[in-house]
């Protein structure tokens, strides 16, 4: 089956946010493997299925709050990351030894094909999220990432702009504490 493009995913989510249930199943089928991939890379295979399922329920529970016209994947990964982190925290509290390393670490090797695909998609999703910000915020975030020179501002003014840009990015990600 053909992999839907990001534009198609955006359209499906916009339709679902408006109550068009015909977009539900194709969207679920397109997003579920992504949630599995993310959860497997962050938590390992044992917890991946549960984390992916609870992430999908969280995503669809909040689908009606999605703002049509915004890119869906940054929002989606923000929800999934939040859910995966919460699940990891619960499990690590219950059994630190079984879970092992801290939750922010990857559970797969750097050259794992699934991880490479995921990293590329996360990178593109973040790029899309930054691109949909206003010019001033996008410029400040690019400066923080070291891609462009820091604007000619004094330090407190720059910090204020960075804080405002992050707040806008967080809002775009649906108010989640996304990575």
């Amino acid at each position: 089956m053909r992999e839907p493009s990001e534009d198609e995913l955006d359209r499906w989510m916009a339709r679902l946010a408006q109550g068009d249930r015909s977009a539900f199943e194709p969207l679920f089928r397109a997003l579920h493997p992504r949630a599995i991939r993310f959860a497997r890379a962050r938590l390992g295979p044992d917890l991946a299925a549960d984390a992916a399922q609870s992430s999908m329920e969280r995503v669809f529970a909040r689908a009606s709050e999605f703002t049509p016209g915004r890119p869906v994947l940054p929002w989606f990964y923000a929800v999934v990351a939040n859910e995966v982190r919460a699940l990891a925290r619960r499990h690590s509290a219950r059994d630190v030894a079984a879970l092992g390393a801290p939750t922010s670490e990857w559970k797969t090797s750097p050259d794992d094909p699934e991880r490479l695909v995921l990293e590329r998609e996360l990178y593109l999703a973040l790029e899309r999220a930054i691109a949909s910000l206003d010019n001033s915020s996008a410029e400040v975030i690019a400066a923080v990432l070291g891609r462009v020179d820091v604007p000619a501002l004094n330090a407190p003014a720059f910090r204020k702009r960075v804080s405002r840009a992050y707040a806008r990015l967080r809002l775009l990600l649906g108010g989640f504490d996304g990575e």
Partner: protein
Amino acid sequence: MENEHPVGLRAARRAYELGRLRVSLLHGMAGSALAAGVAAASVGWRALVWVPFTLLVWTAVEWRGTWLMRGARRGFWAGLVTLLLPLSVLRPCCRPGMDMSSGTCCTMPEVCVAVGAFVGLSLAVLVPKAPIGHRAITAVGMGLGVLSVAALRCAPLLLGEAAGLLGGLLAGVLAANIARAWTDRQKARG
């Protein structure tokens, strides 16, 4: 295949419907509060007995979504217009201060029909440009939207007047939607 999970799909669908219901309830409460505020100011407190009906309709159309919701949102504004109609317009043969029981005051349901039809027809400018297969549901949405708010106006009216106003509104909304469909078809033909 890893994405073939009927149980997971059903659970996600349930989560979607519950989430949608929660958002719909919030939207319904916001819309009903606005309509209730306008009704209390223009019609009086007794209009508020119909607010649960407005809330029920709004929650239902917001939950259903798509063209029903879009139509209802347009109809909502026309419904608000009916709340601002003075009683002297709906009951022209009855001057302010006159008592219905005195025998010198009359009702004119036909005026309510005419006023309702006029407001309903004026909705022609608000009819959303729905695809051909969705026009009927859009018209139903507009009808529900306008009725859910106009019902608050009916509290001080007599039965015939209320039926006339609501019937006129529905007829006007229907005629506006038919007219819009006809003009769209003419434009498409060239």
